[in-house]
């Protein structure tokens, strides 16, 4: 079946949506969105502890999204903006959900899936250990990251992550990550 982005996007818009975006992801956009959300969450969430946790996850997931988008080659079609990505922040019955989506090269799926599976199966103590290990031993990547984003979010949310990979074509898939607060 052909990947339908509009259908996909509406499937992500579940629960009570606080903010949803589909399109080009730039550094300026992320900065602006984080500023808008900071004020909005301040009004929306009375428990400061929850607000902080959600905001921390937002910073990490949006910056992760920006750094890890794989652009489709131009020739594919003109359907997608440059550096295309999706994010939806919503309120669920249990709490809050931060969902991001981006294209990923198929050859990156296996290592990412392995990393996610490993993180999901870890106890809080193991996550702490892994976090400190990467923090102490890893150098900066060329993107200015440290490969800590996923571990950090898992540590803050006790591993409450969901993910799915949807086939796009023989070279690319669409990656969706959900973090629950």
């Amino acid at each position, binding site marked *: 079946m052909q990947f339908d982005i509009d259908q996909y996007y509406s499937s992500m818009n579940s629960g009570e949506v606080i903010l949803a975006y589909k399109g080009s992801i730039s*550094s300026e956009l992320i*900065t602006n969105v984080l500023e808008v959300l900071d004020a909005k969450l301040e009004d929306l969430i009375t428990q400061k502890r929850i607000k*902080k946790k959600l905001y921390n996850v937002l910073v990490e997931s949006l*910056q992760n999204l920006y750094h890890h988008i794989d652009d489709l080659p131009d020739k594919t079609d003109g359907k997608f903006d440059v550096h295309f990505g999706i994010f939806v922040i919503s309120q669920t019955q249990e709490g809050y959900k931060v969902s991001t989506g981006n294209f990923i090269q198929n050859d990156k799926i296996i290592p990412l899936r392995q990393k996610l599976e490993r993180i999901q199966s870890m106890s809080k103590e193991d996550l702490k250990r892994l976090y*400190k290990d990467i923090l102490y031993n890893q150098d*900066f990547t060329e993107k200015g990251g440290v490969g*800590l984003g996923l571990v950090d979010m898992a540590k803050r949310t006790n591993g409450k992550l969901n993910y799915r990979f949807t086939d796009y074509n023989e070279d690319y898939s669409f990656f969706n990550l959900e973090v629950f607060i």
Partner: protein
Amino acid sequence: MESISIEGTTKTPSVKLNPESGVIEIKGRSIPENSIEFYRPIIEWLDEYAKNPNKNTTVNVQLEYFNTSSSKCILDIFKKLESLKKARNEVKINWYYEEDDEDMLESGEDYESIIRVPFKMIEIVD
């Protein structure tokens, strides 16, 4: 050597580095996408400071938010302070966290467990 004072923004913390008093202060938010650029002058200042440091160095870290990119730079700062301590100088780190902010307390404890400098966790009550 000169003191440094950097004003905070919505993405970067305010920083005060004072060689006379030996007080180093980092306060606010640290969430730039790429934190290396922001922290470079601070690391360089610490290298210079270590050549002729104050007998007592006090570091006050009071962050509301910081991202993983910054966490690495903060560790680099702490590693410099660890060397300073190893060279027989008094160094202490005050780690401030807001009441109920367990994540921030935990981050402080994570640093405390990997850096050989005495930490003091200080809770800020509204």
